[in-house]
């Protein structure tokens, strides 16, 4: 286990923007032994993926390796010819991308894509590769391993695709696999199965791996050692257990600290005033298919209701119905005791003003051609009739409220903001309408943990100061733990369980809540092993197709 497989020394990588080379990786060393798994963590823009790809001697378009050396099994990759690199890639070093759905070619069957690499590299004949594929599919616990390869990528689920991709990376039995956030796009319940599959197969073939992620709890399950990156530089590296138990650097400690954010109970719960929003017996869907089936939900003023569930459970559909974007097919909505018209178009402007929504992707929720002052100014003008000087003053107040300096930001374009700043602007836009109810649709899931925590703290502060009520849609249980008063668990369009956070999070749980809660990775490196042992049959059981 001690023989050296990959050695990267003093790596410098530059990317080209605005006609000049800017450093992305600034002198990082990386060594990896055979059969060892290295976890590479850091926030977005830290250079994790760039460094991971460099281990294959590859850089993305517009980037170049400007210094340092990369030796893979004694072979120099920096100076190697494209032909030599081609011999290595796919055969001895493989790559598993973040989104398997985007990385598979939709026009070919899974098994065709599986066979491509071993046949091209002359490792196996087509027939051998096919039978090998079936074997690996079975090992990685895909349902119907004999047949699943003959499906097209769109015919299998996201979790299955990600496993098929891992199997494909294994096809030539490489010495090294680079996993680039393979479970980030998956639900927690699916993530478990993929993690278990990856870990199992990598251990079985004694393959070394670089596992790139921003989720500490995930990396804790997978890695032997962990390297933390920040803005292209290494912060620290140590064995996974040491890192978790005893982080040395302040930055690493701050990454760990995120998990500790707990919101104090709300100052004032207006239990006596009657519900702010009531959903009664609601059904809604697209076309003839009902996504929501009989939802009953009461939201008290001044509280945060977290709606959790995996994708497809109807969380976002519910938000669209409340916003009036999707008229429900049955049931009724009440705001402050008064019935809300089903379609947003029929709602009076003043009623529409009271209910605001913050989207998941701040990138697409801000018009890239509008300045910040126009984005925040428009609801002020539209709902409150503010103009000129009064509008300008209010925009500045709102920017101060969301902790952005008005002088610096008021004239910027969205492209000149970071992800967290964009989300703050979205919050300011919602606040501009002076609402009493805000739907937050996965507002932190596209953000790094530190930034996400900042947003959560901001939302919490605003709630106290402005007496807001939140409906917080999320699939992240950690977020729910930190901010929710009430929790609603949804599955397949129905509410499985609802109640105060304390009740939901303490046993006994409804079976689905149990599955959801136990699937959330914990920082304990033995968590996955323990869970798999405990569940035994659950994970090996085949996913329904």
């Amino acid at each position, binding site marked *: 286990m001690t023989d050296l497989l990959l050695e990267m020394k003093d790596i410098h990588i530059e990317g080209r923007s605005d006609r000049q080379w800017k450093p992305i990786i600034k002198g990082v060393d990386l060594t990896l032994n055979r059969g060892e798994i290295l976890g590479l963590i850091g926030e977005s823009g830290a250079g994790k993926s760039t460094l991971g790809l460099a281990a294959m001697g590859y850089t993305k378009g517009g980037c170049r390796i400007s210094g340092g050396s990369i030796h893979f099994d004694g072979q120099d990759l920096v100076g190697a010819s494209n032909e030599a690199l081609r011999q290595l890639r796919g055969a001895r070093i493989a790559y598993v991308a973040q989104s398997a759905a985007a990385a598979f070619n939709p026009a070919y069957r899974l098994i065709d894509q599986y066979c491509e690499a071993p046949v091209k590299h002359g490792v196996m004949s087509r027939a051998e590769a096919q039978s090998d594929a079936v074997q690996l599919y079975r090992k990685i616990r895909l349902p119907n391993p004999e047949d699943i390869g003959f499906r097209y990528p769109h015919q299998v689920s996201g979790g299955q695709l990600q496993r098929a991709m891992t199997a494909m990376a294994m096809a030539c039995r490489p010495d090294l696999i680079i996993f680039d956030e393979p479970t980030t796009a998956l639900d927690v319940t699916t993530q478990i199965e993929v993690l278990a599959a990856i870990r199992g197969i990598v251990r079985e073939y004694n393959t070394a791996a670089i596992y790139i992620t921003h989720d500490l709890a995930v990396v804790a399950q997978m890695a032997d050692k962990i390297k933390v990156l920040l803005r292209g530089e290494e912060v620290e590296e140590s064995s996974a257990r040491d890192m978790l138990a005893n982080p040395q650097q302040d930055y690493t400690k701050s990454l760990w600290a995120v998990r500790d954010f707990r919101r104090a109970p709300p100052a004032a719960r207006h239990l006596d005033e009657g519900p702010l929003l009531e959903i009664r017996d609601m059904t809604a869907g697209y076309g003839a298919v009902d996504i929501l089936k009989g939802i009953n939900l009461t939201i008290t003023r001044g509280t945060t209701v977290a709606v959790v569930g995996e994708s497809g459970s109807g969380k976002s559909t519910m938000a669209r119905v409340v916003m009036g974007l999707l008229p429900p097919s049955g049931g009724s909505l009440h705001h402050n005791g008064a019935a809300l018209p089903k379609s*947003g178009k029929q709602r009076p402007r003043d009623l529409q003003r009271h209910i605001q*929504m913050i*989207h998941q992707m701040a990138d*697409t*929720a801000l018009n*890239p051609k509008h300045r910040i002052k126009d984005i925040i100014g428009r609801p002020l003008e539209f709902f409150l009739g503010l103009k000129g000087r009064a509008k300008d003053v209010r925009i500045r107040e709102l920017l101060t409220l969301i902790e952005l300096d008005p002088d610096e930001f008021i004239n910027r374009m969205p492209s000149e903001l970071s992800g967290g700043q964009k989300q703050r602007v979205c919050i300011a836009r919602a606040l501009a309408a002076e609402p009493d109810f805000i739907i937050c649709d996965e507002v932190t899931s596209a953000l790094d943990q530190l930034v996400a925590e900042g947003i959560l703290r901001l939302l919490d502060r605003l709630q106290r100061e402005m007496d807001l009520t939140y409906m917080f849609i999320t699939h992240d249980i950690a977020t729910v733990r930190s901010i929710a008063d009430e929790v609603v668990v949804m599955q397949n369009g129905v509410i499985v369980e609802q109640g105060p956070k304390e009740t939901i999070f303490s046993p006994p749980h409804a079976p689905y809540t149990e599955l959801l809660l136990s699937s959330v990775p914990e920082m304990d490196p033995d968590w996955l092993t323990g869970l798999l042992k405990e569940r035994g049959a659950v994970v090996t059981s085949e996913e329904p197709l």
Partner: protein
Amino acid sequence: MYNLSHHLKDAPVSAWIGIVIVLFYAVLALGAPFLAPFAESASVGKQYMPWTSPHYLGTDALGRDVLSRLIYGARNTVGIALVTTILAFTLGATFGLLAATIGGWFDAISSRVVDVLMAIPPLIFALLILTITGTSVIALILVIAILDSTRVFRLSRAVAQGILTMDYIEVARMRGEGMFWLIRKEVLPNAAAPLIAEFGLRFCFVFLFISALSFLGLGIQPPTADWGGMVRESAKLISFANFATFQTATFGLAPLLPAGAIALLTIGVNLVVDWVLHMSSGLKD
């Protein structure tokens, strides 16, 4: 304004060549009466005079000065092409954006109408209509504008549909914004870049289309100078070209002058369009 000068400074050489060519044509078109040495359609000399002073590019079959007619041709051909393209864009983009935003029956009807118009080969369709209406400049502009607006319709509809799926549109809809605000403030600024690029390309096509129609005798009518018509009038000379001396050679080169004018402008506009396209794709990040 700052942005424009900023971009101009960063423009590549090819874009500068394009800009210079386009500006040169614009000056010719605007200043034709002052720049041209002779009148547009007056017989000022003998038939087919060689390239010597005062007729630097010789005379044509009716003894008109070729240089003067080339300069006036810029005004006529380019002017009409420009008006036609602007009209085609106003029409096509308006309906395209409306169809994407309103959707439903409006989209269905306007898209089918466009499909029908596009199903007929444009040259044959234009010939047919112009034969019926007669070959006035107004008829020419309207027919080509309507034919070309179908292409603009398809592009602007597709671009707008992409933009309309963005969350910021949903935010605006949730706010209860009206349709015109939605189109003008949310969709149009984001659709501008591809539409501008298409404008340049479309202008070239219209310009070539008019020249083609003129060549066939259904475009701009003589004695108005027009490059397409000039090519047609002098096309047969090419077979009498004799390259023994410079004087006889210029005779055979006569049709190449208006053809070259068309080609050069097309290249110039495309160079500028390439640059605008590149810029707009770069700005997306």
